[in-house]
């Protein structure tokens, strides 16, 4: 009988890849945005007190679900496998699914099914234009991955048009939840008639990080004025716009210190982060980068972080700035991101971050299509960290699984 060495975890794989880690973090952010503070007590009571009643409820739900019949994975309307979505098309194509949903794709469209079960269908739009008419009242959640943006829908009609550097979403009916690093607060709710246009940038480290354009077909109505006799009569009511104007008068540094990054961003005024970066100290440049990143304008953090590298390379925080710059550029400009991670390591990145940086180099090279570079970087990582926590992910990115 062979002996197993304990603790067993030392011989176990890294459980979560970098891609999944990011995805989970986005989901965590979305969940936190949904649950109000007052609901937490109920959530925690359910989580931390006995499971007796919850188990009975779950049992009842499971019983009725089984009675109704679990929906199972989606198939084509003719019963064939959903793999037909991935087949190349010649000319426009209409695909009818077993749940009543319809996909209409143009000749340039490329799709891939990522997940398909009774609760979720996840599809990747790799390129082209696809119209989704998702059946209302269905049992499953649809997730449409489009690179720069992820869309979550339950029963809607919308169109996705993806090119190498841009994603456009037009909502025709219902509601779509869009998530992406380039969106303010990383999430946006789109209703019928609304569109989203996200540019992934064509120029390295440039103002190509255009903020996504949210078009509205109808103007947002102004909030009604407070009426006498109302709950707030006799008390001056400050509109959100006036409150923001007041905050914007405070210096941006003070607001950033209080973690009010959105207000700090507005307080920077015309020219914003880029203008304030000129001639700024390292402290201010780091603060400006934080203001940009944490107010939902990650692309604008590039300018102050670059200045740290170019003008303050000797500062002990420069390697950290390069590391952060690499992370910001990883999705849109992976080739440049790889260079920045390597620069951070060369500049003396703290040892606690070097392993992460080396793994990011592999990922960045893979994303940039540099297969040889990714493999070489993966070999360097594996040599340095034979039991590294990113080893599985590094192998996947390098294509050596």
């Amino acid at each position, binding site marked *: 009988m062979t002996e197993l060495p304990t603790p067993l975890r030392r*011989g176990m794989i890294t459980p979560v890849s970098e891609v999944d880690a990011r995805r989970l973090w986005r989901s965590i952010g979305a969940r936190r945005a949904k649950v109000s503070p007052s609901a937490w007590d109920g959530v925690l009571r359910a989580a931390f007190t006995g499971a007796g009643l919850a188990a009975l409820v779950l049992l009842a739900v499971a019983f009725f679900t089984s009675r109704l019949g679990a929906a199972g994975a989606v198939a084509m309307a003719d019963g064939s496998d959903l793999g037909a979505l991935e087949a190349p098309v010649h000319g426009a194509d209409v695909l009818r699914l077993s749940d009543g949903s319809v996909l209409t794709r143009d000749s340039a469209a490329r799709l891939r099914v990522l997940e398909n079960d009774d609760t979720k269908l996840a599809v990747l739009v790799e390129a082209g234009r696809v119209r989704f008419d998702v059946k209302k009242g269905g049992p499953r959640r649809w997730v449409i991955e489009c690179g720069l943006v992820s869309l979550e829908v339950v029963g809607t009609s919308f169109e996705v048009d993806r090119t190498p550097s841009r994603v456009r979403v037009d909502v025709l009916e219902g509601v779509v939840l869009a998530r992406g690093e380039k969106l303010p607060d990383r999430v946006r709710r789109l209703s019928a008639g609304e569109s989203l246009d996200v540019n992934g940038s064509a120029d390295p480290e440039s103002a190509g990080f255009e903020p996504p354009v949210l078009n509205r077909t109808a103007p947002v109505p102004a909030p009604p004025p407070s009426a006498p006799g109302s709950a707030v009569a006799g008390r001056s009511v400050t509109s959100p716009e006036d409150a923001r104007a007041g905050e914007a008068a405070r210096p941006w540094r003070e607001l950033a210190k209080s973690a009010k990054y959105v207000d700090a961003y507005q307080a920077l005024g015309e020219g914003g982060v880029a203008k304030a970066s000129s001639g700024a100290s390292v402290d201010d440049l780091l603060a400006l980068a934080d203001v940009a990143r944490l107010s939902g304008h990650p692309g604008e953090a590039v300018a102050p972080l670059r200045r740290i590298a170019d003008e303050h390379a000797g500062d002990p925080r420069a390697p950290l700035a390069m590391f952060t710059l690499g992370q910001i550029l990883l999705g849109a400009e992976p080739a440049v991101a790889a260079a920045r991670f390597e620069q951070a390591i060369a500049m003396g990145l703290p040892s606690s971050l070097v392993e992460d940086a080396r793994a990011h180099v592999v990922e960045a090279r893979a994303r940039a299509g540099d297969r040889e570079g990714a493999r070489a970087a993966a070999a360097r990582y594996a040599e340095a960290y034979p039991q590294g*926590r990113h080893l599985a992910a590094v192998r996947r990115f390098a294509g050596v699984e």
Partner: protein
Amino acid sequence: MSALPEVGRVSDAELVARAKRGDASAEEAIYRRHLQTIAGVVLRLTRHRPDMEEVVQETFVIALEKLDSLRDGDALGGWLLQIAVRLVRRRLRRGALLRFFGFDAGTADSPLDALASDAFGPEECAELAVLDGVLGELPTEQRIAWLLRHAEGESVEEVAVACRCSVSTAKRRIAAAEARVQQHVRLKEIA
């Protein structure tokens, strides 16, 4: 002033303090630092990747919302583990209940042998498969206690904290599980 990490590792206590002040990057740093540990524990306990992802998300959502209740920031790791173990216990009990009443609770897609890295050879993987089967037959509390002790390397005291039970109860659960495990698998504790 900056949310970028200082040169050298920032302590858990510092990250917690920053996060309590509303520093979003500190919150993400907390998540990044503890994700693999929590995910690994949860995956080895649940043996089901979708469940692992759900529990991991719930753990960090709860932790970040209730961070103010954590007085000792350096106890962050143990506190996160405690939250995760509670959530796992609830899931495992639900699964056992569903199976008891004849419902399919979903098959494990990540048994221990499927989680082995190249560090384990074929013979060891086979032993892991046997171990996984034995652990699957144990009562939930014994399985959790044993895995925390021998898969995660937690001390008996740490197991007790994670399981929110007394040290003697933790010892009793671990011993009961070991009595079953040792009939099928041999273990060697590596320092």
